């Protein structure tokens, strides 16, 4: 028998001893004290601890039959230490020592069962998350009230069957849906995440919206595989509706057009089915229902974001008045705030505020160009070379080796260039293997616009 590599926590042995004594005295809730130490086993057992103890005792019996027999006699048959010591011609103190050893060993077996249950639970969780796209955030700002509202709507058996998150691009609709799905994944039997657009994976390609039949096919594919998805359309829709009625599924439909909402909702079964649709859209859907509008960050959340960004970039902290002055000039758009912090890497606060006083009031992109220009102008030559290379990589980003081969910069100079770009908030790193450096879409738009000539490499 192989035990888990980790040792059981000390408290487990004490709790097990107390539980065994309570069990010997026929207490009904004898094992409940173990829940704190064995949460995954408890969840799997669903309150039925006897089979769990039986399994652990079975393993103990295989390893040390004498110790298993001793525990059985003491805590299941209720025999006293004196009686057993007399039977085995041992001193009571010797028997107590053996009992201590047996309880420790039993705790080890319970701990290995906990490790196994944890691995199984993690595998089940990973299976449920198989369609969840990777997170694009490390910390969330200003989403707590929206997350709470989604929780109260979608986790309630009597809540609305679908919720629509509405708002302009870049305000965090997909992030909100992702955070909700990830946070409450255990509530659902399964999760489907359907991007309502077919993407062609490059900055230059357009994405086109999928039609209703394709959306239903993708849902069927994710939840039941080819056996359902490959059915003729009517059969497929009926099969999907049945599946959604039988199971508790969260279906996220990301970036749906208003015209597609009603046809897609036709496959959502009525109560008492517990399946819920969470839809994000850039447009308003006129029909009544659970609508959640997204807006820019408020003052407090914007200041928190600024603080976090300043700390992340290793810049000296700013007092609240300075942060408020930045917010007053830039507003609550998360990306604009982040880029503004990049200015602080090379300009004193007074100069940054002065520059932001004359922000253009035209379309949003001009604001970003205005913010980008000083950032790019202050870059050293190597950093400009790397930045100029970035648009020639697809949006998912380039590996270190690719950037090195592409730019021909030696390691030390490339390292410094990457540091500079990240320090100025012009580049981000996706740490998932293989780690990749990537730019934001607006950075791409800025770099490939006409004024790109202004940042020619020296």
């Amino acid at each position, binding site marked *: 028998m192989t035990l888990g590599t980790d040792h059981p926590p000390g408290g487990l042995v004490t709790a097990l001893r107390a539980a065994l004594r309570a069990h010997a005295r026929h207490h009904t809730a004898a094992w409940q004290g173990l829940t704190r130490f064995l949460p995954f086993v408890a969840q799997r057992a669903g309150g039925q601890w006897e089979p769990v103890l039986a399994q652990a005792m079975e393993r103990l019996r295989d390893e040390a039959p004498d110790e298993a027999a001793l525990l059985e006699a003491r805590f299941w048959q209720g025999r006293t230490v004196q009686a057993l010591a007399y039977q085995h011609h041992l001193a009571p103190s010797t028997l107590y020592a053996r009992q201590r050893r047996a309880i420790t060993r039993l705790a080890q077996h319970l701990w290995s069962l906990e490790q196994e249950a944890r691995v199984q639970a993690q595998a089940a969780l990973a299976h449920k998350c198989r369609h969840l796209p990777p997170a694009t955030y490390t910390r969330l700002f200003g989403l707590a009230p929206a997350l709470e509202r989604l929780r109260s709507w979608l986790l309630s058996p009597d809540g609305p069957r679908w919720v629509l998150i509405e708002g302009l691009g870049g305000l965090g609709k997909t992030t909100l849906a992702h955070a909700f799905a990830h946070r409450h994944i255990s509530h659902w039997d399964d999760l489907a995440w359907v991007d309502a657009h*077919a993407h*062609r*994976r*490059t*900055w*230059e*390609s357009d994405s086109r919206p999928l039609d209703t039949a394709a959306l239903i*096919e993708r849902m069927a*594919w994710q939840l039941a595989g*080819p*056996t359902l*998805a*490959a*059915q*003729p*359309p*009517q*059969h497929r829709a009926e099969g999907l509706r049945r599946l959604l009625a039988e199971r508790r599924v969260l279906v996220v439909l990301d970036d749906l057009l208003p015209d597609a909402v009603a046809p897609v909702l036709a496959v959502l079964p009525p109560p008492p089915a517990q399946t819920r649709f969470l839809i994000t859209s850039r447009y308003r859907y006129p029909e009544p229902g659970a609508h959640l509008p997204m807006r820019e960050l408020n003052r407090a959340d914007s200041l928190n974001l600024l603080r976090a960004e300043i700390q992340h970039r290793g810049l000296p902290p700013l007092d609240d008045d300075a942060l408020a002055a930045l917010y007053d000039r830039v507003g609550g758009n998360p990306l604009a705030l982040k880029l503004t912090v990049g200015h602080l890497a090379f300009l004193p606060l007074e100069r940054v505020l002065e520059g932001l006083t004359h922000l253009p009031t035209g379309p949003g992109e001009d604001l970003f160009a205005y913010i980008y220009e000083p950032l790019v102008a202050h870059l050293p030559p190597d950093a400009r070379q790397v930045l*100029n*290379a970035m*648009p*020639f*990589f*697809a*949006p*998912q980003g*380039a590996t270190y080796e*690719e950037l090195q*081969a*592409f730019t021909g910069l030696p390691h030390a100079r490339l390292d410094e260039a990457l540091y500079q770009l990240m320090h100025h908030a012009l580049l981000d790193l996706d740490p998932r293997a*293989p780690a990749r450096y990537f730019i934001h879409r607006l950075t791409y738009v800025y770099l*490939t616009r006409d004024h790109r000539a202004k940042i020619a490499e020296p």
Partner: protein
Amino acid sequence: MSTSHATTEPKSRNREPSPAGRALAYWATRIQRLPPAAEDAARVLAHARQALQLAARQGADAASLARLAQHLHGPLMSRGLVRTWAHDLQALLDLRPDVFEHTPALGDSLLSAWTAAGEWQRVQEVLSTFQHAAAERRPLAAQLLHRHGSLLWMQGHWSAALRLAQQAWRLTPPELPDLRIAITGLLLLATWRLGRRKHARRWGLRGLALCAADQHLWRGRLHHYLLLTALPHDLTAASRHLRLAEAHLSTAQAHLQLAHLWADATDLYLAQGQPDRAEEALLRAYTLWREIEDPAGLADYYRHAAVVAFALGRTRVAREYAAHAAERWRALGVTAEVRRCQALLHGPKAPSPNAP
């Protein structure tokens, strides 16, 4: 001290290539060295497509653009990214026609991409774009005739397809064996559809004789077509062709052709009394066709699925499959296929799916 030291010095620091030029050269080399089963192939191809599109917009030179496009064609087509690639190449043609003037073979690449994506209206448009240029160049004219013939074959105009294939064959010089092999494939398919099985087999064998040992893609395709000519009478030969086609196409990593092969293999499995195997092969084909959103492939899937469902006695669902297949073929404007689906719907029993 090495005497070659001086030659390794850069010739001029003022002639550094632009980022677009660097990108085109870098990705062309990278794709050339890309192993067929590389794990990050999809990522590399996406980067190269991005570089091609942006460099074209930024006015990179036609030769470099054409070189990268030529390197991209094979890997993208064999991975089933036909629609994506057709859109990219079409965008390149619209933005930079000079690239296609520099390398006329790219016109054929664009035609093959639209054809594989089942966008026959687009094929027609591109054919007319290149017709004028082709008049003066014999091999290009043969290539376009072949493409046009393929289009007509897919639209169900088999006699016309045969005529064009024969013309293309006469125009193609022996120095272009690849084009000759492709034309034998079309000749095989057209004669088979017209019920001339012996002729079809002969063209298939002739094509195989023209193939080099390592031309796995074409060997696989021709064995696939020979499988069709062997059905439904010679099941032994059909099995042999299926085995060989699968081996060659797998070696060539030709996923798109494999999907077509699996769909056609259902007819063999049904003839051998193995409906479960037929169903399994069909689902494999569906999995690929849905991924690449191939309209003709999916329409073909639904027709095959109807045949298999009829064979399994699932009449209601079989009729739904057949009706949906007919609808899809009608949307594509292929009346011959619509008629085959209607025959499934209205006939007393399911006819042989490969009846010409």
